[in-house]
């Protein structure tokens, strides 16, 4: 399954501190184009902080992040979005008052160019864009099989579907790098299977590079091409799922041994 491509994102010696708390210490890894890359570790290991650094929510004190060969400093989240990084959140961050369709349409925000006047009069590009992007959005809606909830305000949807809408919004932006923060958290087995299927087909059919955080080891080991393990903000191990599974440090810190 491993298809090593060029390095898409390179994280080098990242350190992030909140006052005296060291959330991340000298973490480095590379994410290659087209792979599914998993970040795992115990609670509080700094996994979400890592995504927040990549995404521009946090600004690490030391280290560099290079995306598509370009080193970036102090980037804001909307700039990261403009560069082609989308993400979903651990606790869903949808626009609750808007419908599924509107939520997914916001994912196309950066691709729309209509001027204020064109939008105010719903003419020329104002109208053309709405329809053209609607077609793209419908493709994503078909892809994630959420046709039936198009016009439902997302606040009324069950948890599993909300997660799916959030993924749809991220995909609508046609990202090069998709960051998924615990996409399967709190789901039942069927929902997890659906989500796995969507993550895999996103990777295979759309060719999107995916970095995901997940606690369900079965899911991680099945889905990902490579895994990095964090513990107390430090990198413990990196490698293919099998390598990581056999690593004694990782077993001690996180995986544990089965007693049967």
């Amino acid at each position, binding site marked *: 399954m491993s298809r090593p491509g060029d390095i898409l994102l390179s994280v080098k010696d990242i350190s992030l501190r909140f006052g005296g708390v060291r959330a991340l210490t000298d973490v480095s890894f590379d994410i290659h184009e087209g792979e599914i890359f998993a970040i795992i570790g115990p609670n509080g290991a700094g996994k979400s902080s890592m995504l927040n650094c990549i995404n521009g929510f946090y600004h690490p004190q030391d280290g560099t992040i290079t995306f598509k060969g370009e080193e970036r400093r102090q980037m804001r989240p909307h700039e990261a979005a403009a560069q082609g990084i989308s993400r979903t959140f651990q606790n869903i961050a949808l626009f609750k008052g808007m419908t599924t369709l509107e939520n997914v349409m*916001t994912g196309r925000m950066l691709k729309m160019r209509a001027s204020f006047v064109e939008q105010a009069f719903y003419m020329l590009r104002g109208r053309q864009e709405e329809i053209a992007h609607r077609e793209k959005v419908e493709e994503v809606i078909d892809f994630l099989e959420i046709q039936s909830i198009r016009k439902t305000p997302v606040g009324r949807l069950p948890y599993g579907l909300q997660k799916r809408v959030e993924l749809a919004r991220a995909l609508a932006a046609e990202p090069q790098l998709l960051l998924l923060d615990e996409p399967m958290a709190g789901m039942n087995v069927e929902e997890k299977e659906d989500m796995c299927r969507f993550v895999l087909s996103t990777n295979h059919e759309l060719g999107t590079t995916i970095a995901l955080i997940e606690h369900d080891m079965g899911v991680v080991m099945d889905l990902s091409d490579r895994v990095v393990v964090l513990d107390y903000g430090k990198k413990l191990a990196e490698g293919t799922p099998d390598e990581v599974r056999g690593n004694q440090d990782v077993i001690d810190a996180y995986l544990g041994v089965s007693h049967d």
Partner: protein
Amino acid sequence: MLYREAGQYKTSYSADQAMLTIPLDRWFVFALTAFAIIGVPLLASEYLMGSILIPVLILSIAALGLNILTGYCGQLSLGTGAFMAAGAYLAYKIATNIVWLPIWVVIPLAGLCAAAIGIAFGLPSLRIKGFYLAVATLAAQFFLLWLFVKVPWFVNDSISGVPPAPPRSVFGFQVTGAAAGNEAKYLFVLAFVIALAWIARNLARSRIGRSWMAIRDMDIAAELVGIRPLPTKLSAFAISSFFCGVAGALWALCYINSVEPTAFDINRSFQVLFMVIVGGLGSVLGSFLGAAFIFLLPILLNSAPGWIGYSVASDTITHIEFMLFGVLIIFFLIVEPHGLARLWQIAKEKLRLWPFPY
């Protein structure tokens, strides 16, 4: 049932994204607009047009404006009166100093000036939210009104400080000032209402409307999809203030026929805020329903005892009015934050299946 949504298939995205997707709705709105343009001036009495329809229509514009800011973008504002005053004073200033400029250009121009002022007072919105922002806009309310009263330049050094509206005409019909006929004024105001309501609906369904709602619902996630918070919030302030400015200019020039500060005091801000809350946050229809409801309720209270041959002292009525408004605001905030517009929608949904429960 004549009115039904089932079986109304849309075969293109453009049809699905139309403003009114159901033909019957579309015909109803067309008919209503046509009646408002042709029927009302023919049928309505002077009193109905001059004292009820014109102010209700103007206040709906203001309510639309506040709804854009508070309902769609989620930024609470108590400065509506001030932005209306800005529109009124600047419309007067422009109309009296550039006499050749047609009045239908003057009023949008005054709206643009109000928009610029709105942007200035919207700048703190990046840093402060909720109640604190409301207090910041309250500062706008008091400061701007103080400014317009204190600086005689705005009223061309008028001695009374309350200059009469300059008489101006459109197509030969006088539309502003005391001498203008109510029909002409009504149609003039109506033209603005139709245009602005249409624009508000368009904005709400376009990218800019979605970015406002995204900021309202979750600003962190909004930033994530590439929405820049400051320009988005400022655009809401600008457009909201534009609407309020136009409403203020029309209020001064077409309704009360003079430019006076008391028409735009803090009570006006609260009145428009109540309209938006009662009518429905984040709804164009709600702005109209709210404006009509809040403006008509006191009139109804005043005249209702007379109809049933019963007289109540006018101060008692005022007290009842206060109590009723208080109760209504609390009721809507707790029970139905989306206001009359949502109640209307629920009624439609229920009627669709009536008499079956599901």
